[in-house]
């Protein structure tokens, strides 16, 4: 299999990238420049900006959990796609295997649900 069918995608990618880069580069050149100390502060509706913690500070663990769960399900999806494409060729065997696989992931999912891993409060 050659990679040439993928080349046009790179073409569109390159054009969009060049356009975006051009826009970003030209914006400071054609816009006005009026120095104002307050303008360079982080915007917080006019109050004194909250000082940013060094190194990003602490963040709710929920976002981290969501990302981990995303990886689990994304890998499940990656297994489902080739299975779905070859479904008619696999026969009953493919069906039974996939029911077992989805069931297995579902048990983990049910566990996470029960432990409150999916709750945002």
């Amino acid at each position: 299999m050659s990679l040439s069918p993928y080349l046009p995608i790179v073409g569109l990618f390159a054009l969009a990238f060049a356009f975006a880069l051009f826009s970003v580069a030209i914006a400071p050149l054609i816009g006005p420049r009026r120095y104002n100390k307050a303008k360079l502060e982080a915007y917080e509706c006019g109050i004194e900006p909250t000082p940013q913690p060094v190194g990003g500070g602490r963040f709710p663990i929920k976002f981290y959990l969501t990302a981990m769960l995303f990886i689990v399900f994304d890998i499940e999806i990656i297994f489902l796609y080739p299975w779905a494409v070859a479904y008619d060729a696999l026969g009953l065997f493919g069906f039974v295997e996939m029911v077992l696989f989805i069931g297995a992931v579902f048990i983990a999912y049910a566990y996470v649900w029960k432990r409150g891993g999916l709750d945002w409060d």
Partner: protein
Amino acid sequence: MIDVWWLLILKVVGIFAFLVLVTLFTIWFERRVVGRMQHRPGPNRVGPFGLLQSLADGLKLAFKEDILPRGVDRWVFVLAPVISTTAAFTGFAVIPFGPEVSIFGEQTSLQLAEVPVGVLVVLAASAMGVYGVVLAGWSSGSTYPLLGGMRSAAQMISYEIGMGLSIVAVFMAASTLSTREIVAAQADGTPYQLLGMDVQLPSWYVLLLFPSFLIFMISIVGETNRAPFDLAEAESELVGGFHTEYSSLKFALFFLAEYVAMVVMSGLAVTMFLGGWHAPWPLSLWGEANTGWWPFLWFTLKVMGFLFMFVWLRGTLPRLRYDQFMHLGWKVLVPASLVWIIAISGIRSAARDEGDRALWLTVLGLVFIAALLGYLWPRRRPVPPATADSGAGGFPVPPLDLVVPPNPRAKRLAATRAGTGPASGSGEGADDEKEV
């Protein structure tokens, strides 16, 4: 088959121009339609019907000051809109918008790249878009953009799960990942014997796989950060969300990326569920409807239909609360997709005349999942009625039949009137003075 080089360049530039033009049109269209929904005319001054409004806005943005606030991470801050825009555009490369046509004597199909894993390219490009948003929020060095960026990242990856699972049924039905072949698979209805007559069953997957379509529609609204799921830029909570600190053309690029992502997702939805560029039913009776450049028109009209859906949703529904929104993504869309995948694969197995065993297995699987769901279904715990003694929510509440004791002054007054009090008229006066 790969085209000659000048044709490739022509197609790349053509698709780019098409996406930019559709974006300009959609911004105007959205403002007009939302305006009508709110009983006001919307922009109607610049050009005929206000059509040039978004072009004017874009030019205005270009001549605004490009502010680089003090706290930002310079390189990432500049790169984030570039990533967003590039990722949004790239997805359209594999979407077919017409059959074979001849351009300057060359036969070519109206699709930039036909690859065997077409749909994966769109999904990959849309996943890259998350980077633009989360990096923009992180590099701004400001509170609201950081919160908006994190929210947006969690939201987009959550709804990617729903989207990825919902289209499995389409791949199963079409037996391919290639966008062109998915469109081809929806071209003709399957002939079916009904009461001795040949009936053409409709072949669009929106009819055959309606639950998939429903989940896919909800997911792409979440994936593109559009109302009612626009929590990343909930202006009542987070000012502008991840792009609060952006100005000038950098802000315009985020705007462009959002609308291009909408167009690409609509194009994907049309390809997967609405028969791609094929003419809809009454038009398809006309013999030439699916030849030449006509299909490009049908494709554009279908995409417009989807864009109208986006605008309609925005004009109708209020924004969700974040926990409700994540609840919908993880606890409704994901299990619904999984159950639907098992159901549709069981039905296909059963239809493939392996008969009873597959059917029983499907039923068993569904019962298993239904039992799990029933076990996990959230139950509202009975709230004990608030009594006067226990108080409501920890606050003391007086009993309903409480007799309020009369205040001391009224008691004294009553006593003097009856003449049993300690004082005469002057004493009463002295009392009054003391109180004042």
